[in-house]
């Protein structure tokens, strides 16, 4: 059950009914400010992500891709429709600690050292001290932060902080890993490195991944499927199957198919924009 395994779970392969993540006709509207009308963040979005698939959500600002993650993690309630994780409501999955969330801001607790930050979800779950320390050390190895257990967050670089945030999100062995532009604030070199690390990390974990990004290259490189969205109101424009071989590596970028998929994705994104060019 390692690197090559994800290759067997082809996007088209029928997953057992009810497993994975599903959005059924989800709409979300936020009350408008002052005399503005309510904002329709999502309009009837349906999407099924089979278990252990890696799906990227891409689109311009305001297309509701982050809102989708907030719906499935029970931060935002849909005004219509429903989201499901393995057939259950997001709240049930959240309370069972089956969701890991990595935000654009690493949001580490500055009063805790790195190891204690990673252990936080386990601590909140009431896991015994020794057990959570053991698990946290494992995770620091996984994300490449060995030796920084006792460092304060502000002593770390931006990329290292995000590694710690990823380790924290994986602490409770979530079934679903949500990532909201996790590398958006990083420089390109760090970002490229962390993309390759993420390939390795997600192949080592068993989680279904929903990954929000602005970069079509990043989306194609990492995903089994790329979901292209358009704004106002947020809806899905198209879904691109990424049929690149796994495991992905730096060499993937030299694959002619990689370039084709990026072009296809860019074209779909363009359609989304042109709907709204006044």
């Amino acid at each position: 059950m390692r690197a090559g395994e994800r290759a067997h779970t082809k996007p088209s392969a029928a997953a057992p009914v009810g497993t994975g993540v599903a959005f059924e006709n989800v709409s979300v509207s936020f009350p408008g400010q002052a005399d503005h009308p309510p904002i329709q963040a999502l309009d009837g979005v349906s999407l099924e992500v089979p278990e252990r698939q890696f799906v990227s959500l891409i689109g311009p600002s305001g297309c509701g891709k982050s809102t989708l993650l907030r719906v499935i993690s029970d931060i935002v309630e849909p005004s219509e429709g429903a989201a499901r994780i393995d057939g259950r409501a997001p709240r049930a999955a959240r309370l069972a600690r089956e969701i890991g969330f990595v935000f654009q801001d690493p949001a580490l607790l500055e009063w805790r050292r790195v190891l204690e930050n990673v252990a936080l979800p386990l601590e909140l779950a009431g896991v015994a001290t020794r057990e959570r320390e053991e698990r946290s050390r494992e995770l620091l190895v996984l994300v490449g932060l060995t030796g920084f257990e006792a460092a304060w967050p502000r002593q770390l670089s931006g990329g290292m902080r995000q590694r710690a945030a990823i380790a924290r999100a994986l602490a409770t062995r979530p079934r679903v890993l949500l990532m909201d532009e996790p590398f958006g604030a990083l420089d390109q070199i760090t970002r490229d490195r962390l993309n390759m690390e993420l390939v390795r990390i997600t192949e080592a974990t068993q989680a279904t991944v929903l990954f929000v990004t602005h970069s079509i290259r990043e989306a194609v490189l990492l995903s089994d499927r790329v979901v292209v969205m358009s704004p106002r109101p947020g809806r899905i424009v198209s879904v691109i199957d990424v049929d690149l071989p796994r495991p992905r590596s730096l060499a993937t970028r030299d694959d002619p198919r990689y370039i084709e998929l990026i072009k296809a994705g860019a074209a779909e994104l363009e359609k989304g924009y042109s709907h709204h060019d006044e």
Partner: protein
Amino acid sequence: MTSSLRESHASSTESWPARAWPLIWPPLATALIAGIVWEAVTVIFAIPAYFIPSPSRIWEAFWGAPGTLLWHAGITLLEAVIGCLIGSFLGALLGTAFAYWRLLSRGLLPFVIASNTIPVVAIAPIIILWFGHGIESKIAVTTFLCFFPLALNMMKGLQSYDRVIMDVFHVAAATPLQRFFKMRLPSALPYIFVGTKINVSFSVIGAIVAEFVQADRGLGFVIMTTYRTLNMPRLWAALIISALIGLTFFAIVSLIERFVIPWHSSMRTET
């Protein structure tokens, strides 16, 4: 690997006197130079002792009756410490209630702010009328003064948590108690220390002002009686002792702060 840490705290390999010395000698030198200049000025210009007593006269005045002065100082110290503790505690309690209960803060905060603008010299006689002529009334005045800084800082501190961290706790299914103790309270600690540092200065002021109004002991009492008899060197001695008490308080709180929130940016060692 730790070599790549971008900044480090004061090296822990040195013993603490070696680390504290750079912080201790500059103020000592300042005090020494100021004392010498002060002494010289009073001698050269023949300034009368009731106007500005020289450091040596103040020193003599202190050693004339050190036991009595220190006893009075002890009374003031006791009033300040107890008043500071009670006031800070009650202030923190109300600040917490304000942070969690918006209607309460809306309804009550304007009056708490208003109470803070009342000069303590105006309210002290009323409090002394209520609490009597003993040490209790001086503690009550100090409590009144120390209430506001912590109420406000506690409220602001508990509201200062990061919204993304709130989402992290939500996704991790944290209970309200866990959110308070593991997120909001740690976020509030820097504010709590700001309030406490204000309070340690206020507490000495509160105790002395209360003693001005009515007392038969304490540094405020000494200052009032020596002023009436124009025994200015002794007054100055009392004044310097009160400043030293405030300074010691402040140093103790700063030391605790260094220990409790070493992670905070205000604790960065600058070179």
